[in-house]
């Protein structure tokens, strides 16, 4: 399995200039989407749509600055417990099932988010979150039993080569939407989904460029890249 992953990583290395920016973009976009109804972004309209503090904030100009945040949701990140629970729930892989995952968590526990406050989320923790997600993706994509379980009912269960499964935008969207549905859950707004689809489509196209479209290994590489991009994003890591 390690050899296969190494192959995938080699392909991904060709995208070194592109992928990190893409992933960061997805993280930030989903982050922005996640906090769209929360503290900070409501400052311009907080007088109009906060039902539980209307009495205090009515009158616009006379609003008490101490009450500026009244009724608003503080933006949150999942702490490592929520993160592990989410990754387990959405992938179906318990953290203790495979030593590679358990060892990564044990060895990097201090790098994973400890606080639920988004303001406390560091770049190290974002990176550790992404890396942990990729561990789960390795098993989903590379282990045949896990892949068959996870992709059951989709067209990717048996790793059809890209010329059969990823040859047009409809097929690519099918993969992206499958991941979004599995990883971000049913509560994703259409606008958030569209943005993620656009970003992921670019990632898929870039990943496929110059690759052997008749090879299942290429499909595997795409599955891994897309999995990492979505599972390691703010849609999973924020609440």
């Amino acid at each position, binding site marked *: 399995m390690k050899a296969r992953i190494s192959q995938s990583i080699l392909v991904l290395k060709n995208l070194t200039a592109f992928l990190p920016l893409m992933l960061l973009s997805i993280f930030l976009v989903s982050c922005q989407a996640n906090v769209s109804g929360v503290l900070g972004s409501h400052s311009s309209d907080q007088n109009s749509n906060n039902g539980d503090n*209307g009495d205090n904030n009515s009158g616009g100009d006379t609003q008490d600055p101490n009450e500026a945040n009244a009724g608003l949701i503080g933006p949150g990140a999942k702490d490592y417990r929520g993160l592990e629970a989410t990754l387990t729930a959405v992938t179906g892989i318990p953290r203790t099932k495979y030593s590679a995952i358990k060892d990564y968590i044990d060895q990097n526990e201090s790098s994973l988010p400890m606080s639920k406050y988004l303001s406390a989320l560091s770049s190290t923790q974002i990176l550790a979150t992404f890396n942990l997600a990729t561990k789960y993706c390795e098993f989903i994509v590379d282990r045949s039993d896990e892949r068959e379980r996870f992709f059951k009912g989709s067209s990717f269960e048996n790793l059809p080569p890209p010329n059969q499964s990823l040859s047009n935008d409809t097929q690519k969207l099918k993969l992206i939407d499958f991941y979004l549905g599995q990883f971000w859950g049913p509560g994703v707004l259409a606008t958030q989904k569209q943005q993620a689809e656009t970003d992921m489509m670019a990632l898929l196209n870039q990943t496929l460029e110059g690759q052997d479209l008749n090879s299942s290994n290429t499909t595997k590489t795409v599955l891994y890249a897309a999995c990492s991009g979505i599972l390691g994003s703010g849609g999973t890591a924020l609440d």
Partner: protein
Amino acid sequence: MVGLRSMSRIIVSSLLALFCLSLSVFAISHDEAMDLANHLYQRLTGIPPSQVILDQMTNDIMAGHVDKAALVAIDSSDLGFYKNTLVGMFTPLSNEDHDPQRPLSDFTATVVGLIINNKPFNQALYANVIYTPTDDLQTYFFKDPNNNNQITSIHYNGNPLTRISNTTGFLDEFGNRLDVPKVRAVLRTNGLSGDRRYEDNITYLDLQNNVPDWPREMVARSQTEVFSQLRSGRQVQAEDVAGLITSREMANANFSAGTNRVTIKNIASDFFCKDLTQLQDATAADDFVRRDVDRSPNGDSRVYQNTCRSCHAGMDGLANAFSYFDFQTNHFAYDPHALDATITDRDLQGVNGPRKIFRAFDNYPAGYRPVDNTWSNRWTTGPNASLGWRTPPSGQSVNHGKGAAQLGEVLAYTKAFSDCMATRVFKRTCLRDPTPNEATQLISIARQFEQGFSAYASYDASGKYNMRALFAQVAPMCFGGEN
């Protein structure tokens, strides 16, 4: 006539205002409600919702019932509220370093046990309770008195097991091999020489790692029962048991080294949301301040009067409740006779053991010498009367008592405890500090928390001090809508 017209206009205006108000309350689109439901679910459970749950919560929110949507999330079958949110919220309170990454312990397991079973949560400070794995997970050992007290048989689910070896596992009565970690987890609850809870945390580590629905696989036991298994000569008396305060995990924070005064600091911080500095009172009587406190640091008695006394006067009087406890090298110790005997040189040298209470005993010989676990509350008058002391239903005096249980009960019925829990729930749910108006609203909710929220009877959450109901009441404060 004019009066009638004027009255009509007022009525019509009022009705219009009410209509507009109701529109504003319920004017939330399906997408907005779904987005709120998604955030609320993940905030309360740590994981994404299923489609069924999301739909149910969305409908509740669109109907203006954010509180009920919160209860749907709390009661979801994934148990995320208990396993992720509650454990994450209370773990930092369980240890001296406020480390959020400590594993499940008897402290956090008992928090979860009390809340999932709808027990009044203020019992956390005084009840003779500890949550451990259920009887279904229990394994019983029997010593053979005819064979040098060796372990000869092991029962699992009431049936004898065959031991394969010390380390490789067990066979059940049908010859099926049992999962070793699962067996190991339960052995620790009622282990080789009785309970091993006070030697390590293995029971809870294994419970968390090997029993996915562990919040539902626990049962309440009395701490005295579990304690007494370990040291028959030093059985913990019921009067010295105080819920989480005497859990093994918090005992590590409270009773390691020192003079056990830190217990009061930890209680104030964890359950009153107050630093000790906020509770300073230089006017409190200092007759319980012990002999180890220098009354004239560096030769200046004003330092004691103006600084030391303001904390020690209240703290020392209360800390006497914990005089019999100690925690050394992973080992929870209790000795109800610790203060009985004549003080020896060994005691005065500050060696380990409950007699650490006599540490630096010569600093001020006229100071207080603890003789038992009697405590005295110097905070009921003066500035700390604002903590809201109230006589518990048992009639226990708020001014003095004997042992940790009585003290815990007095602390549990303060307004400060309920106010602190409401604020903690707000911060966990909304992830920010409350505004001044919200803080006032939280105090009102805290008073209702004490009496119970009758509206949640159908959710089995209407009892006094019900934490599920408290989360439900607080959620609408930042997730929008009105109850």
